[in-house]
């Protein structure tokens, strides 16, 4: 038994590959036979992944979802940021630059609007929940952008570690919520062409949420959403602890 588990851990990436293939195969089957293609296979598979991560997290008490189980440690590599970014770049092969430049201007507007709106709504919610100092409001507002912008801003403005932890949680929740909700609302928000995908990526910005949400909606749109989303975290890290924090400080007196 021990040799078996040692052997499985050593080839962890391959085990992860087989497991993901099984999840995807099952999800595709459910998509076709149970939901009559109403819910796309990848959407079911991504949701199954999140559910698995929740239950394993409950069991192990760890932070890395299924990767906290020794046999599934390979998931951390297969689902890590390096392979995620590498495969996203590869999807650009199917994208056309002419389509991208068509939405260039709207994409830039979406980026700025996405950061400012998320920050403002997040900071107002923080105020409503009793976090009335500018530091906490800015950090939670930044957490509403992405789970990277939150802690970067919190560290820059000197927020408490409790608030920084909350801002990370808010960012992760956003990414999960976007993943689940996008395929459901895609039709209603007109998310069916490269231009609106670029606007979507710019407004939402959380790379994993945008990437997973679009993959579940229509994989052809992934490169368009990813190309604007990739600038979002950087823009958020730039604006939140500086201009937006100063405005907030001024308003909070």
């Amino acid at each position: 038994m021990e040799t078996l588990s040692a052997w499985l851990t050593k080839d962890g990436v391959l085990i992860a590959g087989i497991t993901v293939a099984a999840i995807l195969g099952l999800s595709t089957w459910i998509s076709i036979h149970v939901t009559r293609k109403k819910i796309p296979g990848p959407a079911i598979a991504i949701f199954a992944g999140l559910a698995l991560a929740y239950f394993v997290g409950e069991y192990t008490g760890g932070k890395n979802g299924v990767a906290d189980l020794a046999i599934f440690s390979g998931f951390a590599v297969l689902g890590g940021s390096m392979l995620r970014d590498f495969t996203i770049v590869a999807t650009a092969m199917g994208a056309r630059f002419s389509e991208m430049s068509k939405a260039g201007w709207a994409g830039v507007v979406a980026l700025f609007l996405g950061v400012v709106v998320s920050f403002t709504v997040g900071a107002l919610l923080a105020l409503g929940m009793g976090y009335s100092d500018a530091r906490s409001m800015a950090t939670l507002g930044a957490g509403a952008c992405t789970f990277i912008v939150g802690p970067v801003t919190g560290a820059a403005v000197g927020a408490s570690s409790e608030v920084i932890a909350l801002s990370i949680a808010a960012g992760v929740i956003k990414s999960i919520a976007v993943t689940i909700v996008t395929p459901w609302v895609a039709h209603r928000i007109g998310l069916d062409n490269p231009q609106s995908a670029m606007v979507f990526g710019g407004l939402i910005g959380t790379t994993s949420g945008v990437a997973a949400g679009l993959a579940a909606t229509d994989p052809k749109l992934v490169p368009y959403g990813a190309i604007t989303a990739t600038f979002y975290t950087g823009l958020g890290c730039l604006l939140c602890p500086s201009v937006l924090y100063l405005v907030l400080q001024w308003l909070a007196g």
Partner: protein
Amino acid sequence: MIYGIALLAICFLLGKAAGELLGMWLGIDANVGGVGFSMILLIFSMQWLHRLRPSDIQWEGGIIFWSNLYIPVIVAMSAVQNVKGALGGGLMALLAGVIPAAVCLALVPRVARLGKTVNKE
């Protein structure tokens, strides 16, 4: 096949480096647009290669392989998220995560329409 992988890897590394440099130049500890620069590099270098050697498309296989792996990677990524920790953040984290995202989703059609009117002018 291996040429495609090499091309993809070169674009990826150059784009990432550009993102890091831009981040450093702006004075922030984050990669700014690394993936975006990589994608633009890949699109242009592929167009250039098509013009240079239109008959030789074998290297495309190396890129198609990775782009097909995209959905499995995303599934694996969702399985390693700290879902329990995020849901344990309480009401504040839940509201700050969901409501701003909902507002931004509602803005998508408006901003997209903005882009269309500008193109027509």
